């Protein structure tokens, strides 16, 4: 062992350029291998575009907020929305509200942003942060999509229901309902119109 290390030392001493090249080549190989591994693991993440949920329609989403208009369900309740063969269904732990496809008169999709920290608890927490730190927390928000459905009941009474869904999902739901035969009129999206109009 001692003899071999002595030989290597002698070799390095006799040809330092060759040793340097070999070291560089080894380092490059290691870096290349590592980058290939990282690229392979990151590929599915980068290939998942925001529009991917539209490409593969999901017919059930949980954690959706029904802002208003769900029959027998309190406003701002959270539950599961799904497209069933008969139409649209929203279910909470206690109740279920269904809208048949034939009764739908129009569907609208809009964009909004929601605060990450909101509600009574969030407001109190933000107010409790000293030196106005709560305002910094208020800067954090996320985009959501709003699905508005207009429909009529068996007596001809007009109803409207508003749901808040993750980005991309509302469009998917609208497309599925349209495919089932729901009526949708051509309209201008007022959500992207100029913000102020007096």
């Amino acid at each position: 062992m001692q003899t071999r290390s002595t030989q290597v030392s002698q070799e390095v001493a006799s040809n330092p350029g060759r040793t340097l090249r070999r070291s560089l080549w080894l380092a490059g190989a290691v870096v290349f291998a590592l980058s290939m591994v990282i690229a392979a693991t990151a590929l599915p993440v980068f290939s998942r575009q925001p529009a991917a949920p539209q490409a593969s329609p999901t017919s059930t989403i949980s954690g959706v907020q029904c802002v208003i208009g769900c029959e027998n369900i309190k406003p701002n309740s959270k539950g599961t929305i799904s497209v069933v063969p008969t139409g649209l269904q929203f279910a909470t732990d206690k109740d279920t509200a269904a809208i048949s496809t034939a009764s739908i008169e129009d569907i609208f999709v809009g964009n909004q942003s929601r605060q990450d920290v909101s509600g009574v608890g969030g407001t109190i927490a933000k107010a409790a942060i000293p030196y106005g730190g709560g305002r910094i927390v208020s800067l954090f928000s996320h985009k959501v999509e709003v699905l508005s459905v207009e429909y009529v009941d068996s007596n001809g009474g007009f109803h409207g229901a508003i749901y808040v869904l993750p980005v991309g999902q509302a469009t998917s739901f609208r497309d599925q309902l349209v495919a089932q035969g729901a009526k949708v009129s051509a309209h201008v999206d007022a959500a992207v119109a100029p913000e102020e109009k007096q």
Partner: protein
Amino acid sequence: MKTVTRAAFPSIFAVVATGAALLLGGSLVAQPGPAGKPTAAPQQPLKLTASAIQIERTDPPEDLQVPEDFRISTYENVILQVEKTKKFGHVYRSGDRRAADAPDLIILRMVPQAYKAGSQKQREVTTVSGGTSIKIRVTFSHRDGKVLLEKDLDGKVRFFGDNLRATYDFAKKVADVVNESF
């Protein structure tokens, strides 16, 4: 002593009789008038009466763009708040065929006059800007079109809550008008 008592009796009688006459006169003046004739003293606004109301969907003018979710939220919130007042036997939705048979039906129409979209983030960060507001003309009318009451009401959200909360604020004001007028 006996002579003194007899002499005082007429004067005491006169005082008592005058007092009784004053009390009687005062009570007659204070009595309410006959039924159906409003008295002049308490000026109360005339209350409208109806057993049913039909709430029409909000219909903005062509030159005013109001987001659909805002229109739907306004309509649904007004229905919820008017139902809560319990002033009407039936609250019919727009287009409900059963309203045609209601004997004394009042129709509530809402026409948006102005809309200002705000930003929840801006409101919470600045507390002085980013408010959302909507101004709507509310009209209560008979089935034949005769207008009974017309008011401009607004809904606002200034500090906390999302933009649609302005429609809840507006609906509460409609309920206040219903409570005052019916």
